């Protein structure tokens, strides 16, 4: 099992969710986050006072999937979240040791 974590532009969330549904992903967890990468921040100006805003709003998705779906999920996210402009985000893939469905007590891939 793998845990895919994707950081994307907030306005791309619907497209990504749609693309993931189409390949049969059952559930995702979404968090509003802030951060910076190569895109860096921007400046805001209030009555002559200039502030550099370092952290930009992004959306973080977490998806637990079986090993055979990893490539499809990565493809779906990559193509749906891509604008070609700086700041499109990143996808991280990590090994997932265990999954437990709380209601039934199922474990492993059945619990995904």
């Amino acid at each position, binding site marked *: 099992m793998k845990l895919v974590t994707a950081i994307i532009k907030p306005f791309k969330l619907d497209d990504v969710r749609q693309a993931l549904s189409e390949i049969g992903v059952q559930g995702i967890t979404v968090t509003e986050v802030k951060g910076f990468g190569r895109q860096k921040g921007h400046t805001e*100006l*209030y009555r*002559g006072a200039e502030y*550099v805003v370092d952290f930009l709003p992004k959306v973080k998705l977490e998806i637990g999937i079986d090993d055979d779906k990893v490539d499809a999920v990565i493809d779906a996210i990559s193509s749906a979240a891509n604008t070609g402009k700086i700041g499109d985000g990143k996808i991280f893939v990590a090994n997932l040791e265990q999954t437990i469905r709380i209601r039934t007590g199922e474990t492993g891939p059945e619990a995904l």
Partner: protein
Amino acid sequence: MNSTKFTGAAAGMACLLLPSLALADELSGADTAWILTSTALVLFMTIPGLALFYAGLVRSKNVLSVLMQCFAITCLASLIWFTYGYGLAFGDGGSMQKWIGNLDLFMSGVGRDSLSGTIPETVFAMFQMTFAIITPALVVGGFAERMKFSAMLWFSALWLTLVYLPVCHWVWGGGWLGDLGLLDFAGGTVVHINAGVAAIVAALVMGNRKGFGSVAMPPHNLTMTVAGAAMLWVGWFGFNAGSALAANGDAGMAMLVTHIGAAAGSLAWMFMEWVRHGKPSVLGIVTGMVAGLGTITPASGFVGPMAALIIGFTAGVVCYVATSFIKRQLKIDDSLDVFPVHGVGGILGTLCAGLFVGTLGGVGLSEGMTTGGQVWIQFIGVAATFVWCAVLTWIILKLIDAVVGLRVDSDEETQGLDIVLHDETGYNL
């Protein structure tokens, strides 16, 4: 109580031009209705107008503290006005009349049938009370986000007593500046220079907010600020057109020039930012509005609409430059820019009242007066208010600092005044 029975914003001027008016003592229902309305409009400027305008500009951890300061000042200034303020500002001071009114306590001479000009004296006193409320409330912007609440109450009470009341008497209550022929229709000196100077002196005495210049302190809710600003614009009609103290042509012209001043100031500031920084900002356009309104205030009953256009545009540009200069060059943390907007605007407007009274549709200079002479009188009014306010404000603050302390401590400032001073938070979302 008032021996002349005719006092107010335009009293000095009107008495010079139309001595017969001073004897008018028949109640006018129309005048009374308009000043009742204006009184409500000016109170509306402070709560909720100014309170929201300021509350949106601070960080979310201090939103309640600013709302609380405006609200508490409203209550405190009202009771001071009732107790001794009205007497000191507008009472007959006898041999001291040049400098201060009298100590008739609890508005004892004001009854159901007392008249002030053509309106009940109760209405006149209430109208003027709303000016005594908004002026110390404007000062809040200078010391926002760091002052102890107790110190703020002491300061507002002492400042109202020792700065506002004397200056109000000098200009509108039959004192020496009014006698001199100073033109201040609705409070360039009494309200705006007073508030602006007090705010910057407070910022200097108290010191900058922790992290000023290095930590980002953006306004936490500009929608609140814009809503408050729009309320100020509407309320300002009562402030300026109400200062005619009658429902007449002066009031109508004051309303027109007030509106033009606000619109011109807004656009001037907006375009300044657009040219210098590439984008027109929402905060910029509403700040320009306040600058335009503050600047037209002293001139509003004396000048014509073309002059108002010039005054408004000039206000937007000059106050914009002053704001950047004080913040970026002088690095003074007049936190909500009270001095560069109200102080500079008040000075500019008071001088412009003299400059434009005799031209471009103004009411005309009094007999024998030249424009140069009038501007000189305006300058004396500006300088006297500036110096009196600066010195007394400094003394009051030093005194309070020694007795109760002005600032919350550093940790409390970081935590925010809402939770530290009031045990509440503005947002439980």
